[in-house]
């Protein structure tokens, strides 16, 4: 395995992308490092600093340990709050997905598989009412008709 040719031409962050996909979501590298450090520091302050304070104010010996753990966990929550205040999420929020293209594709996907799409007559009154209220009845009817047509021309499974 040779990567020697890449040694002097490592792509820059802008070329590769400034985001990293870590543990299921995107982050920014330096901010992740800061967040990790904040988490560790706040946790340690809560655990050891809090434990020292609790001991100093004279809490019973057998409870000092537990309070140190509680304050350590509080420190972790504080770390989360601090990091959230420091850095905004690396996410793009998009709005409405109520586009005819995605609805038709979703209905087609429901029709895949051995059970197929079925007909609205097979559904309960509540389900039919929900589709009515959402304005989706006509789309389901159209998909049923298309499936029936495919069944007549393409043959059954």
């Amino acid at each position, binding site marked *: 395995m040779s990567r020697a040719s890449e040694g002097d031409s490592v792509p820059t962050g802008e070329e*590769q*992308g400034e*985001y*990293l*996909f*870590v*543990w299921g*979501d*995107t*982050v920014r590298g330096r901010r*992740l490092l800061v*967040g*990790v450090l904040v*988490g560790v520091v706040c*946790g*340690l302050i809560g655990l050891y600093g809090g434990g020292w304070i609790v001991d100093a104010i004279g809490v019973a010996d057998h*409870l000092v340990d537990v309070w140190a*753990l*509680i304050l*350590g*966990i509080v420190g*972790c*929550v504080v*770390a*989360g*709050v*601090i*990091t*959230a205040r420091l*850095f*905004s*999420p*690396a*996410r*793009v*929020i*998009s*709005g*409405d*997905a109520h586009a005819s293209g995605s*609805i038709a594709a*979703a*209905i087609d996907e*429901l*029709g895949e598989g051995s*059970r197929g*799409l*079925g*007909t609205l007559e*097979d*559904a*309960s*009154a509540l*389900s039919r009412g*929900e*589709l009515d*209220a*959402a*304005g989706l009845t006509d789309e*389901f009817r159209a998909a049923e008709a298309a499936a029936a047509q495919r069944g007549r021309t393409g043959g059954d499974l």
Partner: protein
Amino acid sequence: MEMLLQDLPIAVLMGLIGAIVFTLIGVVSGTDETATIAPLTLVVILIGVPPAGVFTFFMAAAISKHMTHAVPTMLLGIPGDTLAVPILEDAAKMRALGLPHLALRKAISGAVVSAFIAIPCAVLFAWILSPFGDLITAFAPWIFLIAAAGIAYSSRAKLGGVVALVPFVAFILGLQAWTGSFEVSLSISYFLGIAIGPMIVDLVTVLVPQNRSEMRRSKPSQVFLAPDVRPGDGEDADAVGRRKHAGRTFPNPFRVLDRTQVTATAATSVVSSATFVFSPVAVTVLMGEIVGARIKQGYQRLTSVITAKNGTTESTYIAETLIPLIAFGLPLSPVAAGPAAPLFNAPPVFETNPDEGVVNNIATHLTTLDFFIFALLGAVCATAIAYPFAMRYAHSAATFVVTKVSHEAIIAAFVGLVVVVSLWEGGLLGLLVVTAVGLVGGMLIRTVKLHAGVLFMGYYVAVLSVPGILAAFGG
């Protein structure tokens, strides 16, 4: 009965606290159950809350979490926790149809129905199994071994999972022996390491330059946030009036679900209560497939599967906690070995080691009737807090999390948690163990497709089965 009444006030208080805390935690995506419920349950035990209060806290926490985990799952497409993962694909289809809020209402209603069915079912199954409790305790080392192998085989890894379990058990034995040489005994560090393993793997992976370039993205994550649709939108004036009278914040779950969905939820709740040794994720997937195979119409199939699956997330957790506690007093299920572990082992309050003849856990202090009553109380507290919260504030909560809580903040909090709990339990040795177990366990989860439940059982094989079996053979 007198003791039960005496413990009732503290149980109510702890149930409400558990419900409130975990209603809020459940809305934050990625908050694994073991990593959140186990440490806080441990704290509750160690501060001296009576067993009734501890148990009610745990049940309210677990049930609330599996209600509000549906919020980010349905509205954002991000799993609220581990058990929300099997519902992601179905949630995506409902979002594509423009109906994520309906999916959320169905899921939460299914959770409520399932929780109240699963509790008496689990107690009944436990009662049926309890005559075999002593026999099972005597053969506990072998039973853990067989259960671990069975759970590994039932995971996506199949035979590979069973094979991978062997070196993992050896690894745990090695760590135990090493920390034991310093007279340090650890337990929660192992559980936390397993639970947070994937995060630890990713954080180490990102330090490797080649891996870092592969993890780079040119754009941030795209998150779809469904528009806020309240119950009653799109209906005629009379229906809106009736609904306003009934209250928008607490719709009757039996009116949100049709008869097929109620029946499916009830049936899957009973069945999944009996399959208490299997992975909750696997059982959730299985119940969804069973329900989906029986419904003809596509939309009704989709909504029924979502309802039944989320109901199963409740019933599996309830059964996998109650049955091992009532019938055996041993952590003989993935949930008992994972998020409920402090109920069995929380030194110096609780200890479970049948090999050394020590079984002093929460089951030693509560009767079957206590478990039944306090589990119901936990369900009532969870329903009273989480259900109206999710129905009324789901959109606001999801908006807040996705716009204000960065992923860096979530990682910061969890890294802190790992450091705090491991240092608290075992100092630097605890920190080394949690990092090592997290790295190895996380890689097994990522590459061998094991799940955390298998690894939890692997831990118990190392701690209970191996010494017991070696002793039986004169080793």
